[in-house]
């Protein structure tokens, strides 16, 4: 019970594009315990989505997993056959996606789509049973008049309702792990809050583990127990949410937090991190953030920074912390 549900170890992913090989993930490692919510944060292109896809073995061509291990309940998912993986997908590990209108098949009614998944994972078999369970699921996710929704097509539902339906589908087989890839990003702000609340509530009820991929620190603060900050395919900082927000240690994390518009901050203009994310085509030998870092040192450009413990359960990949003995000092 103390073993983590999911342990990712030195995961590396390459994309073979006509312009060259793009290093999407450069040795990502983290662990997730049962019943906990982990946030994967970073800008677009940092590799957070690729991580989620890699876990279920659906990295799209021309991507390729070239190294590392993904241990789910002790088994390395990367060593499983496609057939074995298919037993796990949707049954033990589920995914929900950013744009529900694109992730729901437009030519089938919602009821059929849920039923298909439930039938596949033997949650129910008879027509009556399927319908009953589907109705229960839809009302669990807060959808009004579930019987109407069962017969509706995706385009007939609003964005929020679509997302709820997708969550229902993902949870239909009571998986152990839910990977939520930016589930609120394409929704209206008010609906975002509703969906987030729904997710938090469902997580508390079912004690499901969640990997929440997002670029929004506010969501992380509200919903996640632990946070992993990704930059250019590497984890630059990892720790509990409280710890990370109180003592952001990596310059990138600090920049992210400073860039959040917060009430009360009106006197200062939003701080922007200058520059942009490197393309991943020709990764620099040193720290990926070196070109944008205020506190950059010569060694940062030349050698990749080591992962250093700042406090219990809080680690950061930065030379600033490698040089000081007391982890709490800011350089």
């Amino acid at each position: 019970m103390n073993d983590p549900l999911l342990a990712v170890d030195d995961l590396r992913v390459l994309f073979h594009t006509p312009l060259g090989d793009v290093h999407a993930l450069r040795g990502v490692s983290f662990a997730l315990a049962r019943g906990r919510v982990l946030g994967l944060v970073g800008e677009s292109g940092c590799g957070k989505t690729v991580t989620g896809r890699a876990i279920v073995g659906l990295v799209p061509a021309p991507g390729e997993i070239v190294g590392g291990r993904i241990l789910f309940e002790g088994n390395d998912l990367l060593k499983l056959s496609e057939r074995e993986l298919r037993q796990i997908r949707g049954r033990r590990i589920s995914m929900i996606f950013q744009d529900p209108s694109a992730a729901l098949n437009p030519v089938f009614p919602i009821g059929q789509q849920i039923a298909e998944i439930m039938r596949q994972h033997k949650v129910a078999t008879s027509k009556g049973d399927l319908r009953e369970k589907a109705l229960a699921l839809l009302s669990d996710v807060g959808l009004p008049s579930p019987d109407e929704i069962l017969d509706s097509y995706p385009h007939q539902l609003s964005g929020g309702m679509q997302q709820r339906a997708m969550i229902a589908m993902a949870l239909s087989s009571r998986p152990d792990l839910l990977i939520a890839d930016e589930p609120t990003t394409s929704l209206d702000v008010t609906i975002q809050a509703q969906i987030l609340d729904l997710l938090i509530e469902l997580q508390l009820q079912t004690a499901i583990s969640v990997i929440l991929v997002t670029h929004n620190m506010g969501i992380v603060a509200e919903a996640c127990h632990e946070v992993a900050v990704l930059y250019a395919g590497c984890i630059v900082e990892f720790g509990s949410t409280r710890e990370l927000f109180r003592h952001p240690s990596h310059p990138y994390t600090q920049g992210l937090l400073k860039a959040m518009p917060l009430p009360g901050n009106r006197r200062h203009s939003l701080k922007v991190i200058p520059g942009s994310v490197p393309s991943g085509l020709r990764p620099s030998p040193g720290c990926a953030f070196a070109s944008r870092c205020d506190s950059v040192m010569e060694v940062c450009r030349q050698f990749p920074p080591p992962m250093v413990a700042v406090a219990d359960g809080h680690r950061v990949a930065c030379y600033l912390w490698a040089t000081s003995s007391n982890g709490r000092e800011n350089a």
Partner: protein
Amino acid sequence: MKPLGPIQRWLGNPAIPRLEPGSALWFFRRDRVGMACSGFLLIVVVVAVLAPYLTAHAAEGRGEPNLPDKFLPPSVEHPLGTDVLGRDQVARVLYGARVALSVALVIVGLSVLIGVTLGALAGYFGGWVDDAIMRITDVFLAFPPLLLAIAIAAALGPSLTNAMIAIALAWWPWYARLVRAQALSVRERNYVRAARSIGVDDLTIIRRHIIPNVLTPVFVQAAMDMGSAIITSAGLSFIGLGPQPPMADWGLMVNEGRAYLLGGRWWISTFPGFALFLTALAFNLLGDSVRDASDPRVRGAGA
């Protein structure tokens, strides 16, 4: 930035693609099949232009009979044999290339010209102009394409020019529709609205903003249509509605050889038809490559 050429200046836009990595032209360059087809077609063009100098039987290519030599099977002296009037087939095929290429160019060029103009006008001005042009387009589109071309060609009289006009008249609606859709969306863009508000006249807006935006899909469609143009005009020639004898046209040649096919003289119909096939194939492959190079999805993943 490279200095703008005359076309670009007229369009008011550096709309012509560049050769940077990741651009459409760059992708096209790397497509081996596409480049091979371009090479092949280039050779065909050169051969067509230089036809008179590439054969000893130029006059026969143009149509002069040489009766004593009729029906000679393929040999070293006449690699593709001779036809019913004793004309060397190599020369005839070479001269036929001229017709085929110019036909394809004229048909596609004419359709594009008519279609783009009408489509841009319809999409940009909207209202009754749009309705009128769209109704006309509907009527033309209601005809099965070849049938309309046949009817028009028959009405105008069988000749090369008339066949080209006929097919162009049957094809322009596709381009009009394509351009109209683009024009409708571009018209609503902010920079177009801004231009109108400061009083830029409509024709200039069409020229500067609408046309450059429709160039890519029109170009892709045109590239893909070149192959069909050759085949369709050959079909018309086969029926007798295209270029008339003694002109060397591949479709016509296939028809001329038809009567002798079963009598053992297979080479008269076979070689011109094969030339048709190869050229159309090259154009179609080229069209595919052009389309693939312009399609952002095909170009490879982001991260």
